[in-house]
Each structure stands twice: as structure tokens, then as C-alpha cells.
């Protein structure tokens, strides 16, 4: 990573989702180290939750981006939110959302996370072919 900083958010999801997205953020912005990617291959729900808690403790990050609303990482993150009032979860994260967050270092984490979620939603469009 070219711009070493303390990660401000955890990215977690299925397969290589987290590493892939963070790698893409790095390629595009050089700010990949805004994020701490977490992969959770074939772990139990309790182990995934412990893994995420450990990542949060290690980095101090209180924002979690996950892939699927029903995914195991999201379920684990939702358990963490209970009793962690300063934590924020953004599920259904995509590259535009992470890039937006990466450039929002001046904003508090929750504010930046909400803005990133709005940006990620707005970035999904469909285009039709023309004759």
C-alpha cells in the first residue's frame, strides 16, 4: 500500500470479496490501507464474529463493510453492533462506496459510512443497448 495509515474500516465477505475490493481501491486511489480486509473461509458463525471483533480491536476501526445482507459476515457484524454503540455496519458494499469512504478521512466514521452507502446505492445503474 502506498499511503500507510491506520485502517478506518473493516471489509468482510465471501471468498476473495474483501481483498479484491480493497485491492481495487488501492489501484484506483492509492488509499487501500483505509481498509482492513477480512476473509472468513468456512468458519462457524461464532468464529466469524470473533474474527471480526479481533480485527476491530486490532485496528480500532468501528465501521464494517460487508457483501450480502443475509451473509454470515453481516450476521456476525449485526451481533457485534449490539453492545457496540459506536459501530456502524454497511451491508451490500461496493467499490464506489469504498472509494467514497476512502476520501472521507475528515469526517467521523459513522458520517462517512452513511455517505458511502448513499454513494454506493446511487452508483448502480443499468444502461440499455441501442440499435
Amino acid at each position, binding site marked *: 500500500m502506498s499511503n500507510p495509515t491506520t485502517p478506518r474500516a473493516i471489509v468482510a465477505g*465471501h471468498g476473495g470479496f474483501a481483498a479484491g475490493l480493497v485491492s481495487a481501491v488501492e489501484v484506483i486511489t492509492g488509499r487501500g490501507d483505509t481498509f482492513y480486509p477480512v476473509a472468513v473461509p*468456512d*468458519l*462457524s*458463525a461464532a*468464529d466469524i464474529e470473533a474474527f471480526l471483533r479481533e480485527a476491530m480491536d486490532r485496528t480500532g476501526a468501528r465501521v464494517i463493510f460487508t457483501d*450480502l*445482507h*443475509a*451473509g*454470515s459476515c*453481516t*450476521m456476525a457484524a*449485526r*451481533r457485534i453492533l*449490539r453492545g457496540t454503540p459506536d459501530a456502524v455496519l454497511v451491508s451490500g458494499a461496493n467499490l464506489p462506496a469504498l472509494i467514497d469512504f476512502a476520501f472521507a478521512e475528515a469526517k467521523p466514521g459513522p458520517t462517512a459510512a452513511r455517505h458511502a452507502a448513499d454513494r454506493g446505492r446511487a452508483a448502480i445503474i443499468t444502461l440499455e443497448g441501442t440499435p
Partner: protein
Amino acid sequence: MTLVLHRIDDRLIHGQVVLGWGPPLGVEFIVLVDDAVATSDWERELYEMAVPPDMEVYFHPVEGSAAALAQYRADERPGILLTGSVESMRRLVEGNGIPAVNVGGIHHRADRTPRLRYVFLSPAEEQALREIAARGVEVTAQDVPSAHPVPLETLLTSRHEL
């Protein structure tokens, strides 16, 4: 339709269940049989929020859930029955005419042997699976629909290298 899948999965409702099996089977409801979840408002809400709006979730403790199975079998919609443990499924299978059990995900624990990437089993769980099979129930391991089902005997003699 009826209950089209009886699955053991210690993650209960998650991506593989909702999005992996749900669309191919046309699943419209999930019956989640788990004592801890059935008795906790917070746990029930957690799982209810994890499914799409057009999918319903029903919660039952293991004890007494057998009677409800008949009702779900008579449902016109396709559904999935989920338990979080082998023991819960073993108790459900007793006298309930469950034709097949899908071992979908049982993960690492200190007393478990890794059998497949997604199936770790303790000696007691292996015995319970044998007891389920001895009742004429087809027991296979399969995490997602596109994977090949692994028969019980193959599962119990497999060893996954970590």
C-alpha cells in the same frame, strides 16, 4: 409443494441458504428449529431481517416441533427446514418421515474431525448421523446445489487437510 430440503447448518440462515438454495428450489419459507433462537426475540428478529421480503421464517424449539412439520408439509409453498445441530435433526427425524437430510455446514470445533471443507464432526455427531441413516433417511453432505452430494459413508471416511 412441501419441505424440499432438510438441512443441518450451524450458521442457520445465511447466504448459501437464502441465495444458494433459495432460488433454485423456489423457496418461499424457512422453518428454523433451534431452541436458542426460538426463545429469543432478538435472535428471531436477526434472522427475520436476513431474508428477502417475499420469504417467511417460522421459529420452533426442537421439543414439540414434530407436530408443526405436518402443517409445513401440507403448505403449498416450497420450504426449507433448518437445524443448527446434528442432534436437533436426529431428534426431529424420529418418526417424522423426513426422507433426506442435507449436511450443509458444521464448522470447526476442538472436538471435531475435519471431514470436508465445510463439515467437521465429533464422534457423537457421527454416531447421530448414523442413527439418522439407520432410519432409512438419505444423509448426504452438500454445501451448495451445484456441488456433488457426498454420501454419508464417504463423508465419515473422508479427511479434510486444513
